[in-house]
């Protein structure tokens, strides 16, 4: 496959570029040009390979394993494109692509700044090289063919006109567990197909498709943004390492700061987009669940924020002497990338298999080892270099900070962020040792840290660099302290915040908010490019207020809504008006009229059974107002007419499950499941693609008479039809709803021939259509989104300012 050739060549070009940069660093002549050619060729090859993968996905090239596993023909173009990063292989490919492109900009950036390029780019190429090894054909290439290792493919995904041909016999297999038929697609079959002039793409006509949880708008945006953040986190590492090998520590901070800011901004945005996805579409109820996957991207973000603040101090100080916090800065810049790699290791190695909602399944021992090697190499490289220079660093950069100095306040803030990162990291890593922590652990441990951050956020801006006069500090804080106290009293009185820690948190957050507003107002008349930090901090304070409001005062209630009847819950009047089908009949939207006072709105949560995993999927709907969200998550639906006692409404587990020998009573009959009966020569029939029959022999005793009946299941070309058995004299109908030979069980539904199904217990009590929902009020959740947005704007302004400064 050309894709694999491209990726292999790209790997060679990357290694070549890295070597040439090394020689340039060692003062060889003429190697710089070669290094650039190497990097540029590698970039072209990686982009070409990505385009090939995208093309294969868009043209449904199912002979490629990745395309078959993650896409299908019924997806919209946007979703089809997003299957690029739906699986392990593709998301590594995306990470590689984005890292390579970031490197291209970095090359341009460093080439204009003295002797920076070879030192930075040789480390950066090393990171690219590791990623390219990851996507090579032996590990996680997305270009491998489906047949190189024999794969069983469901007949429903294959071209039926080819299946019936004689040469196909011998390739059919049936799985008694699921009752599905498969074809073994391996090198032999491919050879036979080829001999008959059939290509594999004609044979495999449908892919497995995209997990329905991922089938929405945010899937197209959240992963790429997060991966841009991951890719950009490589840059501060490269700068720090470049400074260490030159043993010169002034320039790198200035040059690295805009990169650190942009990486941090994009990573943070990516994380919160994931939060919005979880809240608004996946129906997990909140934007943050302290899931390992969420945590493991939050930890490098926290470290990057800590790094920004201490780097700023160094930059400020070194203009007038020697920079501060040099060791801290080097370590934090290195940690940011190492933690990105650790995050990848946690979520991709399968080590969290049992503890995360959305970590990947185990990728195999080779990939596991390589991830360890990737993480280990960069950890050793980064910390090794710092250790090597430690003596020098310790002698040269050693000072005392004043208690009332902005330096110390910023340092304290960074340490608080680091403490938070360590706490989250340890909680998240606990499953490695067979332990885990409850969500309470994260909430309770981080709340006091957030309080400190609120104080330092406000205080550090009131303090002056180097030394502050105590009196002027007090004088300057009058306004913010007064405003903070007033707003806290208002929030506590009107917002029902009762928890003591939350009240303290509200106070410090309000303090930070007013300090930033005050300073921003003063600056606004002056140099606007200096506003970035204050805007970002203002955003953070808004975000914190949103967290306090939703975390402290959300209410949730489960409600049963009978159709047409109005029920009051949480101060809202809810009326369920029935369901309608959407998305070509694939999904059901349940319309609920929600009324409060004179306002009303139709909220329509969605439920459907996904073919992909044969499971009930639920999507929430939200009535969003500025001060609060009214959030409705569907729980279950009972049609009231048929045998849908289970609440999920779609024939799931509604009938009785029986194994051989079981008996039960229904509609006055005692039914015993004696044994299975297989249709004649079923294995032979199966080989020829003929029908397979599986019957259940039942003994029915009713009104003193005994009957034997055999409802059965017929499988023809992968399609299953259930044939019921009737006892007309007793008006009884027996129908199988599923057969599982592996566990030896059947699901049996008993009903009257002319009437309704047997569901006495439920049918009598609940004749009405009923929808069960979880209704919640999420006050001021909009502050969380608004705060994030404001923070991002602040970041962008700062990144521009620092980029300009880095050129001087």
């Amino acid at each position: 496959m050309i894709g694999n050739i491209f990726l292999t060549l790209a790997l060679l070009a990357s290694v070549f570029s890295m070597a040439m940069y090394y020689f340039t660093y060692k003062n060889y002549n003429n190697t710089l040009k070669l290094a650039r050619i190497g990097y540029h060729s590698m970039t072209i090859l990686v982009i070409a390979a990505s385009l090939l993968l995208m093309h294969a996905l868009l043209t449904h090239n199912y002979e490629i394993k990745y395309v078959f596993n993650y896409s299908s023909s019924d997806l919209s173009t946007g979703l089809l494109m997003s299957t690029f990063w739906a699986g392990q292989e593709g998301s590594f490919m995306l990470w590689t692509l984005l890292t390579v492109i970031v490197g291209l900009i970095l090359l341009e950036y460093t080439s204009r700044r003295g002797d920076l390029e070879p030192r930075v780019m040789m480390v950066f190429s090393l990171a690219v090289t590791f990623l390219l090894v990851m996507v090579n054909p032996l590990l996680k290439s997305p270009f491998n063919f489906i047949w190189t290792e024999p794969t069983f493919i469901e007949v429903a995904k294959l071209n039926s006109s080819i299946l019936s041909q004689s040469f196909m016999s011998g390739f059919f297999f049936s799985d008694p567990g699921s009752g599905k038929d498969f074809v073994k697609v391996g090198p032999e079959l491919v050879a036979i197909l080829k001999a008959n002039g059939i290509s594999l793409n004609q044979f495999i006509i449908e892919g497995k498709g995209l997990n329905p949880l991922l089938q929405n708008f945010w899937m197209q945006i959240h992963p790429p943004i997060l991966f841009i953040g991951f890719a950009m986190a490589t840059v501060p590492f490269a700068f720090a390492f470049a400074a260490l090998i030159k043993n010169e520590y002034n320039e790198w901070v200035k040059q690295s700061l805009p990169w650190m800011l942009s990486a941090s901004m994009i990573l943070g945005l990516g994380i919160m987009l994931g939060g919005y996805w979880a809240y608004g579409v996946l129906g997990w109820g909140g934007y943050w669940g302290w899931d390992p996957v969420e945590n493991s991207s939050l930890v490098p973000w926290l470290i990057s924020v800590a790094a920004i603040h201490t780097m700023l101090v160094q930059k400020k100080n070194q203009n007038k002497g020697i920079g501060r916090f040099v060791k801290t800065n080097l370590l934090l810049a290195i940690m940011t990338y190492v933690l990105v790699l650790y995050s990848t290791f946690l979520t991709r190695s399968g080590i969290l298999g049992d503890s995360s909602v959305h970590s990947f399944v185990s990728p195999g021992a080779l990939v596991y080892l390589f991830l360890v090697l990737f993480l280990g190499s960069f950890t050793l490289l980064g910390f090794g270099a710092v250790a090597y220079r430690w003596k020098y660093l310790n002698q040269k950069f050693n000072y005392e900070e004043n208690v009332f100095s902005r330096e110390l306040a910023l340092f304290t803030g960074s340490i608080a962020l680091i403490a938070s990162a360590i706490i989250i990291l340890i909680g998240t890593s606990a499953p490695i040792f067979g332990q885990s922590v409850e969500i309470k652990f994260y909430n309770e441990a981080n709340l006091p840290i957030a309080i400190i951050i609120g104080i330092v956020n406000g205080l550090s801006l009131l303090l002056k660099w180097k030394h502050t006069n105590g009196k002027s500090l007090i004088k300057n804080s009058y306004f913010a302290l007064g405003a903070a106290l007033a707003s806290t009293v208002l929030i506590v009185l009107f917002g029902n915040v009762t928890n003591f820690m939350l009240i303290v948190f509200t106070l410090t957050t309000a303090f930070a908010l007013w300090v930033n507003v005050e300073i921003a107002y003063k600056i606004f008349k002056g140099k606007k490019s200096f506003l970035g930090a204050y805007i970002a901090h203002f955003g953070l304070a808004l975000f914190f207020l949103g967290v306090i409001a939703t975390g402290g005062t959300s209410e949730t209630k489960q409600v049963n809504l009978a159709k047409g009847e109005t029920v009051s819950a949480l101060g809202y009047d809810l009326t369920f008006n029935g369901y309608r089908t959407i998305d070509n009949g694939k999904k059901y939207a349940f319309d609920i009229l929600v009324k409060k006072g004179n306002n009303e709105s139709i909220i329509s949560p969605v439920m459907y059974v996904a073919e992909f995993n044969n499971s009930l999927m639920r999507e929430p709907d939200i009535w969003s107002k500025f001060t609060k969200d009214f959030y409705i998550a569907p729980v279950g639906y009972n049609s009231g007419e048929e045998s849908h006692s289970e609440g999920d409404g779609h024939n799931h587990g509604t009938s009785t499950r029986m194994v051989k020998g079981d008996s039960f009573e229904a509609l006055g009959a005692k039914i015993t499941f004696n044994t299975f009966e297989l249709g004649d020569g079923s294995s032979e029939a199966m080989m020829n693609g003929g029908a397979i029959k599986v019957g259940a022999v039942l003994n029915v005793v009713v009104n003193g008479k005994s009957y034997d009946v055999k409802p059965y299941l017929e499988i023809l070309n992968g399609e299953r039809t259930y044939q019921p058995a009737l006892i007309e004299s007793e008006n009884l109908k027996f129908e199988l709803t599923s057969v599982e030979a592996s566990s030896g069980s059947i699901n049996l539904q008993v009903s009257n021939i002319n009437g309704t199904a047997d569901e006495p217990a439920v049918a009598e009590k609940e004749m009405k259509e009923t929808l069960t929902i979880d209704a919640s009020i999420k006050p001021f959740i909009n502050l969380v989104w608004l705060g994030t947005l404001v923070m991002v704007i602040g970041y962008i302004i700062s990144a521009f300012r620092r980029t300009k400064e880095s050129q001087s």
Partner: protein
Amino acid sequence: MNNKYIFGGFIIVVFLGMMAYLFTQTNVAYENDFKNVMTTDNTVKATGAWVKSKNYHIDSEKNLFSFYMVDNHGTELKVVYKGAIPNNFESSTSVVVTGKFQNGVFVASDILTKCPSKYEEQFDEDTKS
């Protein structure tokens, strides 16, 4: 003494101490032997498989979901969960429930289901053995 180290050290020591305390308070161990699950008073995360042949039961009035789980040694455990049946439950291969064993049943506060991402590979293994 350097102010920087006093401030930084204080914060780190206080919070790591607090974390250690919270960790012991909120720590939940994984347990794959149901005999231990039934004898401990602690909250645990029991890992095992859903016993499909025993089906599951939903009590829509009390909003309870119950099913049976089995561990590697064949010990069975009845699990009761207050809430709706989780997405993906029916196709799950392994289940992790968090909760406590009380009065003969395991009362779960959380259910996590793991599904095979590739059914056919699973099938592959079955047929080989």
